[in-house]
């Protein structure tokens, strides 16, 4: 039982923090939980509690449930997702929270794969979940959001009340990408956000034509957003307080190299390149990443050329190295020099 309490306290109260914060939080917590020896091996934020094997529950490291990556020829490069311990971790939570119909908010710097990860999770649940995907921009109007929502739901009359519900046997998951993008209007509000807030607060929305109240039931909202800055606005706390906030950790260097090398290896294998080329795969990835690290240093020292003053390095974090790794995936085996030799 102390495991249950420990797990819930740690993940419940610490997972919204940034990496620094999480580390400090762990230090604090290990002091608090000192008395019990039931903690997991290694870092708390890498483990979850599982009762599948029954009994008192056991800690499972997220790295243990990472599926292996399969390179698929048909997919666009940007649709490739290499599962890592972090993606597995947050997929796990998104799934659980949708199942209890609780709103969840995923934040984290650019390039951590927040969007694609949540999209995949919800897509994989399509048997029980009606998927509503929206992507906000600064020009998103509240009316279009409402139309989008209403078009997916069925109207039903219940005790004289109009209800909007997902098709039977399903619940709705509303995935909103870049939720903090909408422009702040003169009076400090963000109209699409206010609509969603009304939806959560009063569990319903008003019909635009008939001006009557429609209850919306059986849904969970999944907000995805990078931290404010560079066109992203801070969301009002009246809205965010309805959400369980999770912060996705920045992808570590090890993980980056793991991701790129598994893509490259998959590519080289599927197109049956010569072993000479397959062998230099690791070098290629390492060279790209170290080049990228050098590039970051130089850019960092010249803030004038940075596109976003508040976060000079983040926009290009993975995009650049992703692109270079993508370029590596272009040549066909017949064009490679070793083939001819």
């Amino acid at each position: 039982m102390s495991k249950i309490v420990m797990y819930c306290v740690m993940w419940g109260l610490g997972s919204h923090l940034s990496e620094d914060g999480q580390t400090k939080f762990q230090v604090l917590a290990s002091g608090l939980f000192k008395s019990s020896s039931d903690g997991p091996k290694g870092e708390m934020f890498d483990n979850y509690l599982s009762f599948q094997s029954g009994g008192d529950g056991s800690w499972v490291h997220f790295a243990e449930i990472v599926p292996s990556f399969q390179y698929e020829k048909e997919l666009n490069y940007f649709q490739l997702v290499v599962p890592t311990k972090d993606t597995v971790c947050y997929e796990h939570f998104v799934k659980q929270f949708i199942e209890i119909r609780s709103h969840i908010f995923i934040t984290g710097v650019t390039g951590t794969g927040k969007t694609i990860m949540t999209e995949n999770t919800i897509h994989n649940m399509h048997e029980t979940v009606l998927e509503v995907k929206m992507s906000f921009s600064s020009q998103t109007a509240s009316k279009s959001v409402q139309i989008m929502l209403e078009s997916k739901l069925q109207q039903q009359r219940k005790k004289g009340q109009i209800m909007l519900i997902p098709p039977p046997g399903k619940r709705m998951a509303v995935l909103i990408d870049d939720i903090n993008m909408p422009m702040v209007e003169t009076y400090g509000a963000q109209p699409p956000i206010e609509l969603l807030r009304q939806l959560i607060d009063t569990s319903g929305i008003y019909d635009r034509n008939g001006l009557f109240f429609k209850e919306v039931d059986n849904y969970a909202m999944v907000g995805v957003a990078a931290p404010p800055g560079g066109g992203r606005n801070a969301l009002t706390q009246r809205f965010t307080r309805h959400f369980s906030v999770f912060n996705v950790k920045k992808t570590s260097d090890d993980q980056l190299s793991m991701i790129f090398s598994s893509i490259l290896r998959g590519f080289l294998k599927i197109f049956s390149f010569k072993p000479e080329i397959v062998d230099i795969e690791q070098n290629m990835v390492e060279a790209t990443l170290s080049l990228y690290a050098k590039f970051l240093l130089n850019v960092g020292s010249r803030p004038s050329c940075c596109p976003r003053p508040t976060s000079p390095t983040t926009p290009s974090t993975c995009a650049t190295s992703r692109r270079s790794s993508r370029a590596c995936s272009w040549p066909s085996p017949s064009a490679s020099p070793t083939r001819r030799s």
Partner: protein
Amino acid sequence: MADLSQASPATVSRCGMVYIDDFVLTYSELVSSYFQQLPLPQSLQQVMLNSTVSFLPSIFAFLSKTPSPIATTPIQLTFKMLKFFQILLTPSLVEALKNVKYPGLSQCRATRSSRRKS
């Protein structure tokens, strides 16, 4: 309504008002009301409640000093924590917990009563 900073005198004059201070209604009420509705024996509820609540003050003191990417409130985080409990405590697990003899049960009660005296 969270606060009156945006309310005009007209609004205020129309409302009857009940003021609830943060100090009166804190996270501990939330947590205890959650545990009370769990289908568990009362002693077990109490143990879980006590062990959970005992961590909270120092954690929230720490959190108030630590910046987070999205501003959060203690109440919001408490809700999140309770959702974790909700996810974990499936009916089958609750059944299993009922049958477990928890060794620290009597000890926990003792500390609680001694705390009351002090």
